């Protein structure tokens, strides 16, 4: 028993570090939006979503018809609010999903896809 004691502290520290990392893992809401064909017109989506209190970053991809919003650390994005903001900007949300990814990760994924 004595022999494993020195191992316990590092394991606990590792577990705590893992928990800390996961608690700050980025969460984003990704929406597929119909009608989004013009950057000048779609700027309303970015402006409106950027004003959401829990929004950290917004990404718009016209080619893939995707809008992604990243939540601030420790905050939760409201899917209904995101849908309402996009609708008020004049567009239709056809799909909404929550991803454990940052907006930068989603953007990188889209670039790779292209």
């Amino acid at each position, binding site marked *: 028993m004595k022999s494993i004691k020195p191992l316990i502290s590092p394991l606990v520290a590792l577990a705590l570090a893992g928990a800390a990392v996961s608690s700050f893992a980025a969460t984003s809401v990704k929406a597929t939006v119909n009608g989004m*064909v013009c950057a*000048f017109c779609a700027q309303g989506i970015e402006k*409106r979503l950027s004003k959401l209190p829990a929004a950290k970053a917004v990404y718009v991809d016209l080619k893939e018809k995707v809008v992604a919003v990243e939540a601030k650390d420790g905050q939760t994005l409201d899917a209904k609010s995101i849908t309402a903001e996009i609708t008020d900007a004049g567009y239709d949300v056809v799909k909404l999903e929550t991803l454990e990814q940052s907006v930068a990760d989603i953007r990188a994924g889209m670039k790779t896809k292209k």
Partner: protein
Amino acid sequence: MIEFVRTAAAKCLCALAAAFAAAGGAAAAPMGFKDSWMSMGDIGPNWKEAWVNYALTPRDAVGAGALYMRSDDGGTTRRLAELNYTRLLQRWNLPHAQANVWFFAGAGAITGNDFDGSRLALAPGLQVDYETTRVYVAATARLYRAPKLNHDFASLRAGFSFYEVDYDEVQPWFIVEARRMRGLSDKAEITPMLRLVHKRFFVELGVNNSEQARANFMYIF
């Protein structure tokens, strides 16, 4: 190098759009998103128009505008100051396209250099448009009526973008506009234009079939 040129071009266009806005330019196109202000301008020797409107809802905007019209020979002029209402009657948001039907209503005072005083003018209109990331088509009709005056207006616009761009890049388009107005001009005005669209601004520059320069812009605040 290409990135540097793109950035420099974007900055120049921003400055151009801001300059037009500051000058109180003139414009086309209907309204921005809910709770936004939009300024629009359409500037040429025979037609100068400026509008500002505020989107009360995603489908309704109210605003004010000024329009200066001149006959082809420059002998007859009209000036209209109007309050206007824009309504998005119908929108189709498709996976790779958007189509709209817009209604305009304007009312104001019109003056001219061939009659005294001002007259009450009414200016209802309709616009139908269809757009993808590569193709744009629009048809607009607007009546400009006042006692003993009829300056009904119609225009057709069609064009294509040279290539698709990312959301934060400037997209160039080639657009041709044909328009005609009763009472002041007997010929159709044809204007090929270079359209530059960015998320922050919209500018069109061209020369019409009378060899007159034209510029249009839109800017959302």
